[in-house]
């Protein structure tokens, strides 16, 4: 598992989540848990939680995956993205408690999604492949900043402090990374 590529891992996860969603398959859920929980724990700890809190948040995340799997629509986006947003939101809820501003991506909230046209589902798959390759092509100094935001949960000014660079540089590197990704999916957006 450790040596397989993200896309390979993603397609395995896709399949497991589909089994959880469609069949309430406990075995698939257990396997999903074994495969994904350690990575989520790593994520939670990078976000600054202690080991015990991290484990709690991982349990909550995967329980939410089990509970909401029936509402999850594969056509609206990838399961790994879905799990990421659940984990991120639970982490934010733990931090903020009172005011949940962060929404799940469209169609993955508590509302059932509208029917998606088959060609749109195709373009979502394609979108993921392209974003991934844009990420792989990012210059190291841009990737570093994107990672500090997503994985370590640092704000722009925290990143500036950590790397001892001006806030404006952090923002401009983020913009560059964004435009790189955006450029690769532009033609899919225009449809």
């Amino acid at each position: 598992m450790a040596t397989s590529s993200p896309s390979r891992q993603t397609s395995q996860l896709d399949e497991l989540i589909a089994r959880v969603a469609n069949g309430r398959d406990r075995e698939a859920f257990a396997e999903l848990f074994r495969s994904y929980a350690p990575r989520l724990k790593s994520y939670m700890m990078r976000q600054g939680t202690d080991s015990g809190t991290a484990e709690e948040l991982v349990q909550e995340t995967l329980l939410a995956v089990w509970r909401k799997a029936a509402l999850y629509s594969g056509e609206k986006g990838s399961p790994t993205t879905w799990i990421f947003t659940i984990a991120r939101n639970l982490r934010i809820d733990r931090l903020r408690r009172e005011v949940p501003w962060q929404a799940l991506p469209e169609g993955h909230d508590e509302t059932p999604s509208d029917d998606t046209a088959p060609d749109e589902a195709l373009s979502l798959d394609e979108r993921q492949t392209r974003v991934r390759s844009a990420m792989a092509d990012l210059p190291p100094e841009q990737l570093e900043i994107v990672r500090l935001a997503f994985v370590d949960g640092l704000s722009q000014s925290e990143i500036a402090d950590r790397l001892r660079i001006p806030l404006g540089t952090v923002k401009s590197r983020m913009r560059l990374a964004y435009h790189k990704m955006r450029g690769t999916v532009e033609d899919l957006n225009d449809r």
Partner: protein
Amino acid sequence: MSIVHHPDPSNLMCYAAGSLPEPLAAVVACHVSVCPECRRDVAMLEIAGADLVTSLAGVEMLGDASRPVANIGGSADTYAVKQTMAVKKKTGGADVPAPLIRLVGPRLDGITWKYLAPGVRHHPLPLSKGAQGDLRLLKIAAGMQMPEHGHGGAEMTMLLAGAYSDAFGRFTTGDVSDLDTDSEHQPIADPEEGCICLFATLAPSRYKSPLAKLMQRFTGI
């Protein structure tokens, strides 16, 4: 709604990462709820985030935590979720952005306002304990000059009704003005309708309360 002004991509990125400071995240959440373009961008950025997290080397789950919670399953789960959906469906006819409805209700004309300065009323919004910055709704009379940017830190404004204009153009419902610390501008509320906006600042409030600072900017005192 035709949206022209969007949040800066760097702020969309941090919103997707969950690392945008709370008041700014609130504005982005409200904008994203009405802007399909930014919703798509956030979804794109979430793909990137998910990839980074999926690529992390795992940390072993210990003891009891290493097993999935025991009480999963049962039709009750799905039932509970369906109940939530039914409740959420009831907010038709709202002109308040979805993320704010829980705090102020669905209608802008149902919001209670307090006097802030001549021609300016406000409705403060709660943030979590220890959150940096300030978040409030402002209702600005027609033709009023809005506060000049005070160089205190990032600020973001989303128009909820009416319009205003500044050096960057005209802002109408759904538009977001996203300003760096070094930008300067002095918006003027639409001479006919005035405007209602969601106003977030990160300005450090070491010497004065955010409210006192804001009043100072309106009154010049």
